[in-house]
């Protein structure tokens, strides 16, 4: 939308955009009503009761309790309605559907790196299909960043040491802005890019175009071998480490008797600080990979482990963790 050729309203390119804009216009109308109402009242009173002679004083009115209650209660009701509407939109924004297309994003001073499951890697550019939910799992290699898609009306911070996520369903093919909205140093304003929404068929074609290195899971499988993970994690379960087959979503018992539902955050923790939670019946032999493996390779490894569990939903992990929180924390919670 624009006036005199000046854009004043961002493109509505996702399902949320319509929800958020409807909410926006409701709040705008309510606020305009009050702002204009009070302004008219104040100006009119100023004219009507303008002082006519020196020494004139105003009428003696101390207050009025019913009026006070009225103008406390009405704004409260309106505010509660706004809260309810806003919370429901938000709830939707924070619940990625299970069938969402998984993409990984890593923020780094000063670029966005995206990885598709099919193996494509992009920097400051992102290609996605229209009409399909897309879930982006976000991490950071250095400082705080925030991944923002104005046309989709959503954003989420990238926090070092944690996974966060956002999702959207793009509707309108086109090219839209990507911004970093959490200040991250010198070239913060240069940490921008574009998201290209393609028709599903075009998206498939685009996927065929790249992928020289194979899918993300294949890259993970290669890393799995390069890092000699397979020497311990045998599929038979007879190795020094537990079998990773059909692991995703399973409930594992730990050495200290607690149980853990295997999700992405747990895998991340187990790779980075392997002794944090050791599965019962195994020795804490695995080296820690903290500082030795990049965020990008980490997600490749996780994708590889996930590919060993063909029966689990692709997004099993954050769907369960997401029920309690948007951030699936990856800090080593060495809780008793």
């Amino acid at each position, binding site marked *: 939308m624009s006036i005199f050729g*000046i854009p*004043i309203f*961002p493109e509505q390119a996702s399902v949320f955009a319509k929800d958020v804009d409807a*909410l*926006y216009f409701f*709040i705008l109308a309510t*606020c305009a009503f009050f*702002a204009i109402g*009070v302004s008219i009242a*104040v100006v009119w*009173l100023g004219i009507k*009761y303008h*002082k006519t002679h020196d020494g*004139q*004083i*105003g*009428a*003696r009115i*101390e*207050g*009025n309790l019913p009026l*006070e209650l009225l*103008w*406390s209660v009405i704004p409260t009701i309106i*505010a*509660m309605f*706004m*809260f309810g*509407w*806003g*919370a429901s*939109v*938000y709830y939707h*924004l924070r619940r990625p559907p299970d069938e969402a297309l998984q993409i990984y994003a890593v923020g780094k001073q000063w670029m966005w790196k995206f990885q598709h499951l099919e193996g494509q890697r992009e920097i400051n550019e992102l290609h996605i299909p229209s009409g399909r939910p897309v879930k982006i799992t976000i991490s950071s290699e250095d*400082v*705080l960043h*925030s991944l*923002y898609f*104005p046309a989709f009306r*959503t*954003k989420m911070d990238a*926090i*070092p*040491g944690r996974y*966060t996520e956002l999702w959207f369903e793009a509707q309108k093919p086109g090219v839209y*802005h990507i*911004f970093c*909205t959490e*200040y*991250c*140093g*010198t070239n913060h*304003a240069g940490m*921008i890019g574009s998201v290209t929404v393609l028709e599903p068929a075009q998206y498939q074609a685009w996927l065929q175009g790249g992928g020289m290195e194979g899918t993300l899971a294949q890259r993970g499988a290669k890393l799995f071998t390069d890092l000699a993970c397979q020497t311990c994690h045998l599929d038979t379960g007879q190795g020094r480490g537990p079998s990773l087959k059909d692991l995703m979503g399973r409930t594992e018992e730990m050495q200290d008797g607690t149980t853990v539902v295997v999700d992405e955050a747990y895998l991340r923790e187990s790779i980075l600080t392997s002794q944090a939670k050791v599965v019962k019946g195994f020795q804490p032999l695995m080296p820690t990979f903290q*500082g030795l493996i990049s965020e990008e390779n980490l997600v490749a490894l996780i994708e590889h482990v996930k590919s060993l569990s063909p029966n689990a939903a692709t997004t099993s992990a954050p769907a369960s963790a997401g029920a*309690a*929180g948007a*951030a699936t924390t990856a*800090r*080593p919670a060495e809780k008793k």
Partner: protein
Amino acid sequence: MLDTLKIPERHYLNNGHGLASWLLTKDHKRIAIMYLISISVMFLLGGLFAMFIRLELATPQGDFVNADTYNKFFTLHGVIMVFFFLIPSIPAVLGNFLIPPMIGAKDLAFPRINLLSLYIYWLGGVFTLAAMVMGGVDTGWTFYTPYSATATNTHVIPTALGIFIAGFSSILTGLNFIVTIHRMRAPGMTWFRLPLFVWAHYATSLVQVLGTPVIAITIVMLFVENAFGFGIFDPARGGDPVLFQHLFWFYSHPAVYIMILPALGVISELISTFSKKMIFGYSFVAFSSLAIAVFGFIVWAHHMFVAGMSTYSAMVFSFLSFSVAIPSAVKVFNWTATLYKGAISFETPMLYAYGFMGLFLIGGLTGLFLATLGMDIHLHDTYFVVAHFHYIMVGGAIMGYLGGLHFWWPKMTGRMYSEFFSRIAAILVFVGFNLTFFPQFVVGYLGMPRRYHSYPDEMQVLNVMSSAGASVLGLGYALPVIYLLYSLKKGAVAGPNPFAASGLEWHTQSPPLTENFIEVPEVVSEPYEYEHAVAKESHLV
């Protein structure tokens, strides 16, 4: 009648001459004047940085200064304006000057601590300015970790120390006000006869003493991380950068109320005086200040809605954030009702009060957008937020400050300023302000992120409007400096009560005596009574 008035022979300004009589004074009025000069210098400096920011953003390419310099500009603009201008502005200048005479006291409870707070403020200023001269700091005024702890190589330590030190100045001022309001009231000055300005300062002081220590300790933790390599927020050692944000906003959200609450108090005085009418719903206005101060402490996490917070805690904080809207709305409605059947006149202070109502209304209402969860996700860290808080802090706090300064200027100096030029300045400020910041709401909804040195071309027109408005605003702020200084020598003699106001501070000479009153006044009537005299005996010269 005015030409028969004379400046009184003895007053606080001529009770002692020379630099030492000022630097060693314990008189709250002289300390207020020194604060006025200090914060004006800081405002000039902060305004200069704002000017550079708007100059840079006039074109989308980022071609005026480089990105590093720009980042330092907005950081220093924020640090100076927030910690060295807005927080001390109304309390340390107007509150310091007026609370004792308003409640019929000779001075604040702890005059030496009051002077100490000024010296501490100066010391904090020296550290921050030293950081600026050494090459500045580029973290943003929020100092988010891990950037501020590990990634930046600018001067975080001296800046943080400066803020830490200045914080104690704020704590001591608040502490002094609380004790003064509790223990120094004149006979007959009951709690419900206190001017609303004093109520607002009481609420502000509570926030100052309860909130400021938390940012102080947060800065200590940031300091040990920077200076000694400790790792309290360092993710590499298992620390949590989001914890820093929680601690930071636990102070810095209430800090907004340190800036706006005193302005709300000023506006209550102005609207009552220039309607010649008692304030509508006195107790509701008084308690709404306390309510804002209390609610202000339980909403901080709305600054972290996109920082990976759980869905349900986000909902709780969104719900609580709306609670601040109610007492703010109550205030606006009560001011409007006060005008009804008043005897309204539009001297300069009242123009500022009117301007304030319009801008505070927009600032407050746009806060509703940001408290609404689904909306905030889109608007978070965009120019919408920048516009919103400038409407509160500049449109609200500075309009209140300027209105109050014009209202009490004759009391402080004994002389009137040019009514003609002051009205022009008030109108320039109002128009310039809206032209500067209204386009930022629009460009924010378009998606322009804050703290951007360059931006997409299609956002240029709105940014140019904003930059143009800023120059009008700058003119509006420059004018008062000239005519107020001019009035010191050439202004008409004001007399004790040029605006025929009702407060106790107007029942003493202008400028007041060092002891404020010749004899301790006894208060016998309700606040804002225009029918009766406020004091049993008026000691007018």
